[in-house]
């Protein structure tokens, strides 16, 4: 019996010794690829072709619900008009922003891309996320900041990545996280403020973009090949297009969603 206890204690000791060194971060796993020396992904892939396009929608965009921020005076004070959710961000001529456009197939398997050293910054300000939709590479840091003088919790809902749920009760707090597997999309939300949602497209390569206020996007540096391009919108679903790139040319892929 004594020997048994000793071995259990010994095993626990070993576990402790062996686990030293990679504590702390929510995603403790090391990135699959060694960290890039160059911090500029754009430069590394700039040589290839480009896919540009515009995202639009047909029909009438649903109204974004107004947010009642009466519980949070510090957030409410950051707005001059009643803030709304950002479910459907329509621009001029039915342009649709906040669409995550990415190459979902066609990049040769086995080809690896270093994660940029620059982190993606996700700011919580005025009880909303900035940006609302963003792309990030596997292993790339996401720096989550709280610019509001009040409690936010940041919960990641994911299937291929480990989820997490951490709290930032005051302004100035930061948290750095990384995701270890490609996943479109990882949902980020605050449960204190049920209206706060952000969406992260986690990709193994840098071939993604988010449509701007005029609905335009641009994916650069693609090597020659035939690609499936997918456009994801949080309310309108997904659309795909096939684009063949021959050299350093620029090809167009426009997407039109039906409002629903």
């Amino acid at each position, binding site marked *: 019996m004594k020997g048994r206890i000793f071995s259990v204690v010994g095993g626990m000791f*070993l576990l402790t010794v*062996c686990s030293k060194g990679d504590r702390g971060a929510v995603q403790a796993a090391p990135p699959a690829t060694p960290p890039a020396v160059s911090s500029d992904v754009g430069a590394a892939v700039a040589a290839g072709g480009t896919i540009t396009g515009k995202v639009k929608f047909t029909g009438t965009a649903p109204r974004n619900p107004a947010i009642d921020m009466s519980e949070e005076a510090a957030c409410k004070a950051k707005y001059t008009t009643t803030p709304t959710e950002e479910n459907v961000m329509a621009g001029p001529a039915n342009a649709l922003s906040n669409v995550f456009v990415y190459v979902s197939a066609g990049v040769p398997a086995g080809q690896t891309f270093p994660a940029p050293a620059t982190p993606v910054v996700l700011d919580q300000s005025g009880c909303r996320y900035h940006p609302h939709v963003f792309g990030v590479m596997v292993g790339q840091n996401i720096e989550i900041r709280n610019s509001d003088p009040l409690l936010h919790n940041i919960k990641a809902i994911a299937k291929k990545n480990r*989820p997490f749920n951490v709290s930032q009760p005051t302004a100035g707090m930061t948290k750095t996280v990384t995701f270890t597997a490609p996943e479109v999309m990882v949902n980020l939300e605050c449960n204190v403020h049920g209206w706060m949602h952000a969406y992260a497209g986690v990709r193994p390569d840098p071939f993604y973009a988010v449509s701007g206020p005029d609905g335009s996007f641009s994916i650069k540096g693609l090597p020659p090949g035939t690609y499936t391009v997918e456009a994801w919108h949080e309310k309108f679903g997904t659309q795909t297009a096939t684009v063949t790139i021959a050299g350093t040319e620029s090809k167009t892929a426009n997407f039109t969603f039906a409002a629903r």
Partner: protein
Amino acid sequence: MSNRPALCVILLLLAPGSRLLSQDTTAGKVVYQKWCAGCHGDNGAGDGQGARRMIPPPRDFTGAIYQVRSTPSGQLPTDADLLRSIDEGLPGTAMPGWKSRLSDRQRRDVLAYIRTFSTFFADTTQRPQPIAFGGAPAGGSGADALKVGRQFYDSIGCRKCHGDLGRGDGPSAPTLKDDAGHPIFAANLHENWRFNGGGTVEDIYHRLRTGLDGTPMPSFSDLLEQKFLTDEQLWRVAQYVRSLSPQEAPAVRDVVHAPLTKQLPHAPDDSAWTSVDVYWFPLVGQIIRKERWFAPAVSGLWVKAVHTADSIALRVAWDDRSESPDTAWLTYLGHVLGTLDSDDSTREQPALWPDQLAVQFPVSIPTGMERPYFLMGSPSAPVYQWRWSSSSRTTAVAGLARGIDRYDPLPAAGPGARAVYDHGQWRVVFTRALASPDTASQLPFRTGRAIPVAFFAWDGSNGEHGTRMAISTWYFLALDEPVPARVFISPVLAMVLTLGLGLLVVWRAQQKTSFRRQQ
């Protein structure tokens, strides 16, 4: 040095303490299919037959997201964490403890099988690393410690969901959802015996550090690293939260004793109530008659009673995180109705239902052990019920229930009722004359008798109305009789008499002695 990791792995595998080698997933599958699949589903996706009858729903093992862990948020649980949930169950949920039902071997095997539902457990980069928790600082129940705890309870935002007094009624509470989108309630911090991960100060502190992954409850570990508060201050929060619940989980005492008082306290917060003994009764979902209800919001009631020479006052308090009807809870209510399977084929639309309470007595005090059917009587043996509703707070109706779906109000005025809703708790006082003008239908209260009593509660914002409610079984109410004067006089009389007799004997003995001496 570079060989250290490899060496460690080898040593770990060789260590006899490594239990993994002795676990058998094939045997675990047999145990799982017999005991677990009914709720958790054949493929571990939390979609068994019983799944849509419960809130919170059974764990979906495929995501390997677990609430009760010793590891940081986002990490896998350790085997010991999982085994604890299997052994002890998850209080406040439908998950029972299996320690007494399955053997050591069976529990370890089923644990090994559960791990196979997710690829995360096979991923060697995902090894869980338990947090090195320290011990609780001393003096945790002192006023100063609790004050510090309360201060940080506010500043780290606990009140946002758990409410100012901790009854799960915070401003964000109606919007809470778990990862799967199911409605989830913020824990009522006054009921530590229902905390998923255990109710001790240590359990609470551990949950603050790890968070409850998959739920809105975040980890607060970063606050220590970023020096927002110290470890001792976080312990104080845990100690404060612990202080909100009673020392011991309430135990059921079957008989509510109503002492005799001079004045009847009509108001729920009358100071006279503070000196009256309180009795706790658990409630469960009504799952006997359709439409059944598997997810009752009211888990228990606190009951006090007093009486005067001619009247009775009964005070019922229960925690309810919503003051229904409340439009703020309509979305939550919709989620509840959408999550649970209904007995009807048509799904009910959310509506602004009120909170309700029914107090039930027999029509007359039974002479033997026979009592009417506890679930609101029957057509042939009705029961006498007081019904109170939050939509007309200061009145209550008296009536006869003839089964769960038939309630006939009596023409006479109901009992008096006064109600207070305060930070997640209803407190209602019913008053009535002991004598009844209509003894055929309204129970006359009499002292010194065990009067059967039962309770029913509805939380409108949880979708409860009609037969969807929380129910109790029969308990008893006893109106203490005034203590007759002879109880006090008899012992004194007996003592005086004994003393007198004693003196007499002594006196006689002395008389005899002196008589002999004279001779």
